[in-house]
């Protein structure tokens, strides 16, 4: 297929087909999956920035607490005078604000940044394009899904401004702290937290129904299950996890909201309620949730590594079964978050075994990525750099999970910075690097322009270095006994002795945050001034690269692609180029020279 001839045809065809759509219907209340995906992107990038800012304030307080008796003079919080006296007094952050920062950093990052950046953006954008469909099965429900998420985000933001401030019982919201303002000091903020997440849950559910139905029903001719790119497979399993896990969280959040507002006693021990019930409900959702947060990234990374290495993904079938296995086993490991909770120790033994087992499919994927670059012909474009870093960092995150999974070893490590290190290696080193890989890879398709490669590489290098400098030392802080969520770690002598490490981490975190401004600049500038992109700038194989950049409404007009091969036919013998689009006819018609 020619990279030049068809798009104009298709685009012109598509344009002629549709009458002029008013701006509001086209960009605001759009039912086009691509527009909705981009809307999710802008919303989530905003929340990512906000979540990072909250973390910077936290890190400042951890590094420079005011503890005269122990000899720590503190430093006024930069920008602290802009904040009200309920949060910062004379430059010193109050404990109530710190606990709110901890809570909202986690909540915003997990629910309003990473999850929508992986699912809301890419499930919406990629699924129809990668399977050869003109749009989602239910475009109007898709639109509602975005606006519900937006509304939930507004509620969460509003909670900062109410009396008592934002929720402060941790992103995990353990009861009874989270349901009783006599204990936490926060009433409305906690209620808004529960309400916002419930509404976000509805948004996610609507999305999943769409993604699953579309994937099953609307694949183009020839697009059999085992010709789907791993991005698509990962998004399918992720959608099933969301479909089945989110309702359980919703149930728990509703029970929490009732306890907070109308006086029910699901989780109130004084009248027979069970605080541990919340933990079971939350983590029954929460563990599949972490796989929701990593699987799509794994899918993108697979596609990008194969593309960068110019080589088929190693062990495609094994990779698919590994994704399915992770999705499946992920339902029976939730108790490893509750080893210290007081639940029956026999249960602890069971959960330890299942948690160790789930390491196996993750290892399979890692070895297959290694196998993909082995004997490849590797191009180090920015998406590839991020994808390779994902592998390197996810390995660390996964390995640090092993001591946590071994229940007796979890005893000293539970609720310490060792866990913080682990979660950030998988969520940032894993998910966020995967997100950066995906954004830099699909940006040209989305916006018809490429991002700047030099800026991309600088951003990557700084992020990689300072991410490791920030989070690796946290393993040692944890094994050294530093607990989580401490407003002033110097209160404990065994932690005060490690304060230099905390200060070092804070400086590295600030630089890490600053480095993200390079990405912001690159992203925003390239939207308007980036070099115009062709249809297939990365010389990739999957269907989205046969549509124009950006694709018109309906993606291919009133024609659909017909698929003749899998998505990983790189460097196939006999082919003219080192890639073969999935739509390339099977009779070996010579490909024209690429640009």
């Amino acid at each position, binding site marked *: 297929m020619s990279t030049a001839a068809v798009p104009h045809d298709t685009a012109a065809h598509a344009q002629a087909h549709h009458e002029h759509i008013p701006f509001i219907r086209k960009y605001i209340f759009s039912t086009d999956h691509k527009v909705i995906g981009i809307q999710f992107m802008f919303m989530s990038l905003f929340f990512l920035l906000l979540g990072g800012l909250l973390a910077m304030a936290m890190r400042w307080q951890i590094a420079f607490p005011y503890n005269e008796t122990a000899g720590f003079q503190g430093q006024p919080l930069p920008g602290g005078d802009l904040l009200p006296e309920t949060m910062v007094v004379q430059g010193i952050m109050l404990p109530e604000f710190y606990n709110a920062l901890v809570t909202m950093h986690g909540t915003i990052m997990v629910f309003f940044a990473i999850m929508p950046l992986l699912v809301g953006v890419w499930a919406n954008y990629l699924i129809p394009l990668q399977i050869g469909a003109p749009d989602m099965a239910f475009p109007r429900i898709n639109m509602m899904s975005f606006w519900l998420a937006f509304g939930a985000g507004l509620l969460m933001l509003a909670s900062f401004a109410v009396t008592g401030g934002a929720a402060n019982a941790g992103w995990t919201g353990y009861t009874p702290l989270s349901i009783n303002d006599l204990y936490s000091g926060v009433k409305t903020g906690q209620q808004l937290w529960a309400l916002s997440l419930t509404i976000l849950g509805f948004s996610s559910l609507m999305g999943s129904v769409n993604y699953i139905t579309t994937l099953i029903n609307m694949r183009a001719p020839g697009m059999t299950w085992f010709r789907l790119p791993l991005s698509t497979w990962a998004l399918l399993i992720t959608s099933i996890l969301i479909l089945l896990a989110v309702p359980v969280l919703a149930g728990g959040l509703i029970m929490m909201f009732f306890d907070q507002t109308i006086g029910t006693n699901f989780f109130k021990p004084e009248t027979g309620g069970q605080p541990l019930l919340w933990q079971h409900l939350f983590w029954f959702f929460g563990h599949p949730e972490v796989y929701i947060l990593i699987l799509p990234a794994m899918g993108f990374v697979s596609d990008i590594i194969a593309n960068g290495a110019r080589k088929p993904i190693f*062990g495609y079938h094994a990779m698919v079964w590994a994704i399915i296995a992770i999705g499946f086993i992920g339902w029976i490991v939730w108790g490893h978050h509750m080893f210290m909770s007081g639940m029956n120790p026999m249960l602890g033994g069971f959960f330890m075994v299942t948690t160790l087992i789930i390491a*196996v499919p993750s290892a399979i994927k890692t070895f297959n990525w290694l196998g993909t*670059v082995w004997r490849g012909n590797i191009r180090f474009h920015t998406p590839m750099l991020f994808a390779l870093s994902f592998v390197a960092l996810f390995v660390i995150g996964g390995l640090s999970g092993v001591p946590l999974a071994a229940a007796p070893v979890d005893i*000293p490590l539970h609720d310490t910075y060792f866990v913080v290190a682990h979660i950030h290696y998988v969520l940032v080193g894993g998910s966020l690097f995967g997100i950066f890989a995906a954004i830099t890879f699909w940006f040209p398709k989305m916006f018809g322009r490429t991002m700047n490669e030099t800026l991309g590489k600088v951003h990557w290098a700084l992020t990689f270095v300072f991410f490791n400098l920030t989070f690796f030392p946290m393993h040692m802080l944890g094994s050294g006994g530093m607990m989580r969520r401490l407003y002033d770690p110097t209160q404990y002598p065994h932690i005060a002795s490690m304060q230099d490490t905390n200060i070092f981490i804070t400086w590295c975190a600030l630089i890490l945050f600053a480095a993200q401004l390079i990405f912001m600049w690159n992203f925003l500038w390239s939207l308007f001034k980036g070099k115009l992109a062709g249809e297939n700038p990365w010389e990739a194989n999957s269907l989205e690269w046969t549509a124009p950049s950006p694709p018109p409404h309906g993606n291919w007009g009133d024609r659909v692609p017909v698929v003749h091969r899998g998505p990983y036919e790189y460097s196939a013998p006999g082919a003219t180029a080192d890639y073969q689009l999935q739509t390339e006819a099977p009779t070996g018609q010579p490909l024209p020279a690429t640009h």
Partner: protein
Amino acid sequence: MNEFWRLPVNVSSYGGDIDGMFMLIAWVITIVFFAVEILLVWFLFRYRARPGRKAAYMHGNSRMEVLWTGATALIVLFIGVISRGLWLDIKDPLRFPEPGLQLIVSAKQFEWNTTYPGADGQLGTADDFIRRNQMHVPVNVPVRITLVSEDVIHSFYLPELRLKQDAVPGMQIPAWFEATQTGEFTVGCAELCGLQHYRMKGTLTVLSADQFNAWNAQQVAAAGAAPGTTPALAAPVMNNEAAGSPVVAAASHAH
């Protein structure tokens, strides 16, 4: 290696086992880490794109898949097998050693209140006494504690004893430890419990048998002069007002 991981000094009878297992796992994951990362970096260097080169066209290798899947499974199985016994020894009440001392540790915002059995050695009797944030135990004696909470979930954490156990309101959770050295050690809270979670700190003092008996007698005498009530295992607080307003209570706890 203990310095690299900054492990607190171990004064626990089962701490050596936990630390040993941690070290074993740490070595395993370190070896895997270096193997994988070095291989990755080597491949990226060795197989970088150069003019005239082409990638090998292959879709995988079933034998390799089986091999590395099997190897990983064996490693995790091994870790699981060696961990299970120790886990139950520490956490399963049926396996606790016969205690030489029984205490109730009651967590509340933001302090640890320990109830001692007093002269008669029995908890729940009139001569029990309570100490706030100061735990005293004899060395080389298994101590069995029952953890309760008066308000929210806290987590009783003794770093040097390698002990951690959540205290959940409405539940009575057993735990045990045996200190192997005398000295003063840290008591902390490892579960976010409110505004002063960060300073819910106490001291564990491990005394020789004689010193402990002397201390105990002294406390009994003092309690006899001013009898207190046995807390926590009595009827739980029935409504929130009685729990007070810990949020409003300012910072000055006498530690």
